[in-house]
């Protein structure tokens, strides 16, 4: 499943790439949209039936804790979910940035570079 990653022209148009100085920002991890969508839909249907009302609240608490413990979790942060869905365990996000929550210090950062605040 993890192997099913092909270049996704929708998400990462090389023709729309910003100048080279910011190429370093966007990672070149890629997703096959169609494959992800079908896996994604199955998973969502499964998860939706299991979803508890507490989940949103728990996510918020978890996020706060993660922010406080950030310095102790480096080696675990980059771990990828390997059942095919691009899930960031720490933030609960699918298809999103890897690693810690980009907004944990108020601005929007990726790997150290800030793009919004």
């Amino acid at each position, binding site marked *: 499943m993890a192997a099913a990653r092909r270049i996704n022209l929708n998400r990462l148009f090389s023709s729309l790439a910003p100048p080279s100085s910011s190429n370093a920002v966007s990672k070149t991890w890629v997703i096959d949209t169609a494959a992800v969508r079908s896996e*994604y839909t199955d998973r969502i249907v499964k998860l939706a039936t299991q979803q508890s009302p507490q989940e949103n609240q728990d996510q918020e608490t978890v996020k706060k804790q993660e922010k406080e413990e950030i310095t102790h979790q480096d080696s675990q942060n980059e771990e990828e979910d390997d059942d095919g869905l691009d899930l960031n365990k720490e933030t609960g996000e699918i*298809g999103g940035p890897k690693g810690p929550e980009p907004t944990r210090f108020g601005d*929007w950062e990726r790997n150290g570079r800030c793009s919004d605040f």
Partner: protein
Amino acid sequence: MTTSIAGGSSNLHYRLSFCQAKGCGQTSRISSLTFNGCLRDDISWSDGLSKLLKFQRHKFSRSTIIKTWKPLGTRKVSVSSCLRESTVKYFDFAVIGSGVAGLRYALEVAKYGTVAIITKAEPHESNTNYAQGGVSAVLSPSDSVESHMQDTMVAGAYLCDEETVRVVCTEGPDRIRELIAMGAMFDHGEDGNLHLAREGGHSHHRIVHAADMTGREIERALLEAVVNDPNISVFEHHFAIDLLTSQDGPDMVCHGVDTLNTETQQVVRFISKVTLLASGGAGHIYPSTTNPQVATGDGMAMAHRAQAVISNMEFVQFHPTALADEGLPIKPIIARENAFLITEAVRGDGGILYNLDWERFMPLYDERAELAPRDVVARSIDDQLKKRCEKYVLLDISHKPREKILSHFPNIAAECLHYGLDITRQPIPVVPAAHYMCGGVRAGLQGETNVQGLYVAGEVACTGLHGANRLASNSLLEALVFARRAVQPSIDHMKSSSLDLSASNWWARPVVPHSLGSNVMDDVLRKTREVRKELQAIMWKYVGIVRSTTRLETAEVEINELEAQWEKCLFEKGWEQTMVGLEACEMRNLFCCAKLVVSSALARHESRGLHYTIDFPHLEESKRLPTVILPSLVNNNTWSSRQLHKQVIF
């Protein structure tokens, strides 16, 4: 233009005092206008300015009509006539700018008529494309419009227009849903809902995003739809020179825009019933900015020259810590196009700020030191730089474990290493960078301006949403909402307008300076580039983050002198008033915007939000009003303050 307001002075400043109906959500009414000492009657905010300038209601009176223009439905249509080197094209709607505001608007109005999108470079070159964060909207059941409104107003230091804030926060969610329907792919969480992040200043999770390239994703989805729309024609590499306006009684009317095709060096005149200005920001009035090269304030300048009202230009948002190229061991050969911002997380993780004498200065300004709010840090850095006449300060994280630095901030590490700096052992040189213009062309709730047929949306507009400081992720939202809101009035205006097809002859045409020869052109180019750098240096030195009346007045004098010197040089070489070139036209727009920022900053006798001045360092409740610059009616004696053509008066 109502000359009765003129009072004989150019760059008129006056105060609108709001009566904010707190908590009631009523339309803010202007309780009094003090203008050169005179009081006026109550006027509602949304049409206050147009009424102010007209005094009496006048319906748009039609000028001589020859034909009714019927919208054509085929793609890339143009009724064009070629006249010597220049071309005229006729469209129902002209859109200047291809960021989220321009594209969103174009897609809607294209259902009613032909649309030209005019963009000065490639369509994706816009501030939108660089907006990598997200767009804010109330999309979670635990969130509320009131909360988003409150966060916005607090961030804006209560200078926001309440009605505008309500409209934007209320309509935001629908605009996001529409984007999704158009194919924009935002990230989801495990629960299948949109993944909402929470940025500084927001009390709820409400930032919708697509990985770390939200702007690019929105731009991609919109561009795809635009390309597939047969009613929309995109004119790339067309630089907008000046709006084509005429005075019809008391009304200023916009009939289109002159452009320069920078690839073919041909002037193209667009005649349109409706024009949307969505040309973005003006970051390049400063030497260090996150904005791409196209952001030279073209729209604000053109609008000002076209007699549109400009507002709140003093509120320029800076980020405190952008990588300072001057401090890198190996200087970049090619100047960085847009600034590399160092995240707050570096300070959050223990980074310390030092000046070049290795003095830790933050504790002098705030007991929270490096963890003080961003605005405080920005001011402190700016103060240090100005006091010490230095170009950057140092942000040192090297005392932290190497592995932690490299795993948290690989992007910074790589970028610095590329230029010979090892951030695990050496401090990072940083300097504040201009990021966003909260002010711009004054817009009503439908994106309308005081110029008939001219609408604005996005960063070029001042809608009242941001007030004195923008809340994170509200800029894409503002662009989406106002682009949408401008649609209906545009359609109405288009349907009620008729166009004289001979209109294209009403204004003198811009001229490409072939007659000057390449040597002269090289000189002009070289001089213009030097002058741009000098203007940016003046702006940073005197109109930075920490301001003072003396510095602002010095800026005013120096900018005027620099402008006079530049124009003299140009005209001595044979440059004529109607000649156009990309760099020269950008330069005149930069001068125009710089002067607007300085005038606005001088007019605000308090510190609020992004505008901080040591001569008036506190908030003054009585000054909680927008700064408004009315058109200059006299003393338009510089090239940057005049439209290229003569105005037509009926």
